[in-house]
């Protein structure tokens, strides 16, 4: 792959993105997706489904509902939390949802600072709004776990 754009252009997928609310931080890479990235992996894709093309930590086939993602990330020590308020002792993630289907995950880096893997494309650091209200939907479910000391 190896390609890296300076910016992600505003488009139907990302109607809110602009130069000021994101930074591209990696080359394009199809080896992993946003869920794997949020789980801390970059060598395989994570997705809940009845087909065997992606890894999922729970053996049974799962729909792509928030409940399936909550159960999967509970296996990594995460628990559902109320919001995105920043606590340096906690690692938080957020799932973006469209009509009850999870489309994306991001991991919190700081106050209103998040990191994401965009499908088959680059990793970015961004404000939460940057990738909202397009094909990823809106930030809906937050989870947190205590950071390793």
């Amino acid at each position, binding site marked *: *792959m190896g390609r890296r754009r300076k910016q992600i252009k505003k488009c139907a*997928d*990302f109607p809110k993105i602009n130069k000021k609310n994101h930074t591209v931080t990696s080359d394009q890479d*199809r*080896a992993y*997706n*946003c*869920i*794997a990235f949020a789980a801390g992996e970059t*060598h*395989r*894709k*994570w*997705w809940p*489904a009845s*087909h*065997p*093309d*992606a*890894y*999922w930590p729970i053996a049974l086939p799962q729909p*792509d509902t928030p409940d399936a993602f909550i159960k999967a990330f509970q296996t990594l020590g995460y628990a559902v939390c109320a919001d995105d308020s920043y606590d340096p002792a906690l690692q938080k993630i957020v799932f973006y949802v469209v009509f009850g*289907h*999870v*489309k*994306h*995950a991001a991991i919190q880096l700081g106050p209103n600072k998040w990191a994401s*893997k*965009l*499908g*088959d*494309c680059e990793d970015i650091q961004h404000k939460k709004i940057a990738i909202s209200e397009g*094909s*990823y939907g809106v930030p809906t479910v937050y989870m947190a776990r205590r950071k390793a000391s």
Partner: protein
Amino acid sequence: MLNARYVESPPDESTRNRIVQVRGHRAVSRTAPLLLTIRASFADGGGEETPDAEFRRYERKWKRETCYMSSLSDKYLHPSYADIIGMGQKAIGPILRSLQREPNDWFYALRHITKANPVLPQDAGDMRVMTQRWLKWGAQRGYI
């Protein structure tokens, strides 16, 4: 496949004709569908599309329109992905040659077309390993 669309309201409405655009280059009267078909055929290279060309046409559109998707289910539901599965056996070679160029999410299509699955459960999600297993499968059967 005919790549054409109708555009309503031409400038001169008195003619009551609609303009047909073929790939944005050719325009003919809607009253001449046979001519349109012939011109569309020439626009595609003057004859039958090869399986590789047909696959690449679907692949380009699919990659362009799904590049931000993480959901494999959404990627597999894209119309161009369905078109590739619809090519049947003649898609196997083009898909495997595409995998030789770069790993991508062609495993679902390959399973459906070939009714085979050389990928082991513990390799699920690992694009590099899954690609290697399919390329080995294809080489053993003379597809590549």
